[in-house]
């Protein structure tokens, strides 16, 4: 039995959409639609998909920045959506931290690094200033920064260094899970690998679980144990990383892998063509009927536009496509 740390069960997030002079309600966006996933202790799950797929919204419902409209989040087997404010503050919030995508906006420009990194400690653990400071130095050391950096302001650092500071802050409370929303996409290509290695090392050292959000499949493959491919608010394929990359089932997954640079042209089989997705992603306000992907699917069949496929288990992973029903 796997050691499940956090589980999202049937998460759905609806946003009202208002337009016009009187801000009339014209509909609901299903930003996240019946999404379920689980994260094992010490392991990484990645959410992958195009812009607008609902990745950040899923992460927000885990971080409780917004509550899902329906569905729930279970942490160590307990439904945290049932927790009251006090329980959340004591038992959940400190254990689930986050590193945001943009290291330029994720820190208050008027605070020093020592105050930024110590803030979780100040808010949650009532310790002396000295203890906090010692912990800050220790954390900075863990992320590869020096003690003297503590006195500086965020604007004095490069993007990569800032992301290290953000990681230090996320680790301050010894969390069990860290949500990483595109942790390297805002950084120079040359320093992405450093940060990814750092994150991997820290995961091993502290037995951390990660929920990673990413566009880039190379990042995902390198970092994660499990992958959930999202399209228009739904998970369309879900499984172990290696398994999913070796044996992608859903046409959308195939297209993503094909479009990424994971496979060099000379590695492709003679008869394997590059699949290029045509068209834009449809609006989540008005999603296609049946399978949501059918408007862009190279293998669409007549039933695809009528009936929404069920999630089925094929081999070691799950897929939501009529081909496998």
């Amino acid at each position, binding site marked *: 039995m796997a050691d499940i740390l956090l589980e999202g069960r049937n998460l759905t997030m609806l946003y009202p959409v208002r337009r016009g002079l009187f801000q009339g309600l014209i509909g609901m966006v299903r930003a996240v639609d019946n999404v379920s996933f689980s994260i094992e202790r010490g392991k990484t799950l990645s959410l992958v998909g195009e812009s607008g797929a609902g990745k950040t919204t899923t992460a927000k419902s885990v971080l409780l920045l917004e509550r899902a409209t329906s569905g729930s989040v279970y942490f160590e087997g307990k439904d945290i959506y049932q927790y009251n404010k006090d329980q959340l503050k004591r038992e959940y919030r400190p254990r689930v931290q986050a590193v945001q995508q*943009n290291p330029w906006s994720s820190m*208050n420009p008027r605070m020093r690094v020592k105050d930024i990194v110590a803030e979780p400690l100040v808010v*949650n653990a009532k310790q002396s200033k000295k203890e906090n400071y010692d912990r800050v130095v220790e954390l900075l050391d863990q992320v590869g920064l020096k003690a003297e950096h503590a006195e500086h302001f965020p*604007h004095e650092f490069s993007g990569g260094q800032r992301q290290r500071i953000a990681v230090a802050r996320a680790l301050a409370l010894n969390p069990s899970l860290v949500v990483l929303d595109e942790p390297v996409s805002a950084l120079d290509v040359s320093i992405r690998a450093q940060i990814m290695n750092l994150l991997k090392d820290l995961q091993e050292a502290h037995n951390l679980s990660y929920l990673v959000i990413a566009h880039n499949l190379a990042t995902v493959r390198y970092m994660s144990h499990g992958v959930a491919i999202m399209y228009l608010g739904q998970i369309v394929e879900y499984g172990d990383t290696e398994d999913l990359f070796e044996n992608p089932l859903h046409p959308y997954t195939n297209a993503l892998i094909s479009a990424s640079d994971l496979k060099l042209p000379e590695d492709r089989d003679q008869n394997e063509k590059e699949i290029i997705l045509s068209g834009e992603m449809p609006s989540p306000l008005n999603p296609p009927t049946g399978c949501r992907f059918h408007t862009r699917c190279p293998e669409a069949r007549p039933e695809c536009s009528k009936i929404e496929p069920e999630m089925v288990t094929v081999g070691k992973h799950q897929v939501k496509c009529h081909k496998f029903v």
Partner: protein
Amino acid sequence: MEYLRDINEAKIEKRMELRRKFSRLMLIIPVVILALLILSAIFAPLLAPYSPTEIAMTERLQPPSFLKGGSPKHFLGTDSLGRDVFSRIIYGARISLSFSLIVIFITGTVGTILGIISGYFGGRLDSFIMRFTDVALSIPAILIAIILAVGLGPSFKTIVIASSILGWSGYARVIRGEAMRLREVDFVAQARIIGSSRMRIMIKHIFPNVINPLIIIATMMVGLMIIIEATLSYLGAGIPPPNPSWGAMVNDGRNYLETAWWISFFPGFCIGLVVLSCNYLGDWIRDKLDPRLRRL
């Protein structure tokens, strides 16, 4: 080429050093001006050569001592009732400066608190506070002042209350906009993830980042407040006439601008000095508080 770069860097460094010295020097001027004015307001009874209210009809409309026809007894001349302009300016600083500082402090504090709450919480509370703000912005302060003057009697307190009751609305409007913007910035989301309370977020994350507009509005208000005090007093809601304030003195001299310009000019000059000094000081404080600019 290498040596060229070194020379340039050295030169630039030197220039920067000069600039820093210059800007420090430039800062001393407004600080000294404001300090002198505030000190003379505090120690007015010791400094003023004459009583500010004593009428001496025999000495009326005398030019300043350094002009032709000026008497050495009256450094800045006398007004239409023979009162010493210099003494009146020193006493006038008391009313003008304390009025502006008190009103700016009250309105700035109330406006900032309401603006942050309104912008950060949003929703119904925001609509509620903003409705009040719109009403406050649309009522003329003079109307309130006159009503209060009837109710409470004309006094310094009356005009402070009258100006403060509505004056916070300008701050609230601007600060609310900033707070709304900041609410969506990542570091506020991060603070929530960490578990910070709303109170803490407003104090530690929103407030320090709305200081810039706050300082800009507050320094802009200094001059306006001096003039408002004059207007309200002129209308009979404030300090009764013989007591001097700068705004009131400018007013008094209006009929003598051609024959005895000094009656209006010197208090007007003081208002200008205070406004300029405050603006300059405000810019400096703003830069000082901003870590991104602190090194410059």
